């Protein structure tokens, strides 16, 4: 489950940065870019909180980190 969440989060980040690059290259319209970035934002916000901080909790207190 955590793996799926991480994949969804990465897709969210990809949708946040690739469409602007495509817009810069003239491969996509501004409105389509904005829509993709909005979807990417949602994907990140909905999935990332479940694994970023959870990763630290699973490893125990942050004091256990190197």
């Amino acid at each position, binding site marked *: 489950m955590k793996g799926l969440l991480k994949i969804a989060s990465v897709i*969210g*980040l990809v949708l*946040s*940065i690739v469409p*602007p*690059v495509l*817009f*810069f290259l003239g491969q996509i319209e*501004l409105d389509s*870019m*904005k*829509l993709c*970035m*909005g979807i*990417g*934002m949602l994907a*990140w*916000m909905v999935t*990332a*909180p479940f694994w*970023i*901080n959870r990763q630290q909790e699973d490893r125990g*207190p*942050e*004091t256990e*980190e*190197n």
Partner: protein
Amino acid sequence: MSSKLFKKIVAETNEYERTPIPDNQLKGNKSFLGMYAGEHTAGTEFVIGPLFVAHGVSAGDLVLGLLLGNLLAVLSWGLITAPIATAKRMTLYYQLERIAGKQVVRWYNLVNALMFCFLAGSMIAVSATAVGIPFNLEMPTLNDWLPRTPGWIVTVLLMGAVITLVAIQGYNQVSKFANVMSPWMILIFIAAGIVGLAQLGVGSAESLISVAKEVIWNGVPLPGMSRFTIWHIIFFAWFCNMAMHIGMSDLTILRYAKSWTSGFSVFAGVYLGHFVAWIASGILYAVFLQANTGSQEFAPGQIAYQTLGIAGAVCVIIAGWTTANPTIYRAGLALQGIFPKVPTWKITAIVGGITSLAACFPALVMKLLDFVALYGLLLMPMGAVIFADFYFADKMGFRSEGALNSKSDFSWPALLSWVLTLGFCLALNFSYGVEIFFLGLPGWFVAVAIFVVLSRMKYPLTNFLAK
């Protein structure tokens, strides 16, 4: 919110305000990378970058100035703040209390808390320019000092309430929030730069240079604005967080570090936030100015929304939020020094209220560069005092932590170092016209010198040992 949930939120808050951090609470570099990346990729970056454009800095001066200034800032954190933080493991306020005494620290804490409230307030105001978009809120302009509409006040107060509730939960919650949001936020800043350049017609390396030099940072200030040089950029980048590094506010954060090298973790924050984000937001503002010639509106949320859509507007909200949170938390700790018996969460709630009220005034946003410089300058001398006490006490022959060791609530050397240094800076400003951005460096040396001389007189090591 039900009282049961509220109690649950505040029940586990223990921030070690007056004791060193125990070993089992120390954090690795990763915690600080996330914290600093979130903190320095902030709502203020959406204001500072555009203000550089408005001040007519040239493209070459901006890039070189930011590279050098940010390097100096990282070195200040890593070599000045972090070694003391990890050696003492105490909050700035408690450390200062041991040196300067409770009476002096009360005044310092009050000034500190007020400055933090105003800074956090400016960030809430920036966020509000995005929150207000769906409600068609009338946005502030460059010359606004007072709120324009009741809708602005309501928006700001609601945002302040939510942010305060998160801050009440303490450092761990703030760190978690910053950890989650910072990777996405940084990408949005980068995306803003890319899209902005495309909208300005950049299609090649040559056109990038010419657009940067002739359109974005063309060296011509907007009407009514002074012209910034490379020195302004270097010193602003170095000292925009003066209170945090040479002012020692980040003792409170870095005391959790396992190693003093965690101080260098701030590089991620300053080079992403104070280089990439300032440049990106400057590009966005240039796009806005090109599309709205002569417009006085200055609303980062609106500017980001026009270029990036909903993701841009949400980024402005989150960016403001992730900086307002630790700032409110720091202000809470400052007041904790004045009212040690009042629970942290109550103090933070009061601070959040003051911050929200301050955020109602757009002047905090429009005069942000001057305010940031002033706030660092006001707090810096006490950082110099801590530095001098830590490194020079034995070498220069005076007793360290003078107030604690003389069982006094009041230390003249610390108070006079603060007041006389600010007087010196004021004199430089009034008599020689030295701008506020350049006062911190000479001021720091003056503060160290005054403290060492007065401490040798007040707390000589020989007299102490003779007793």
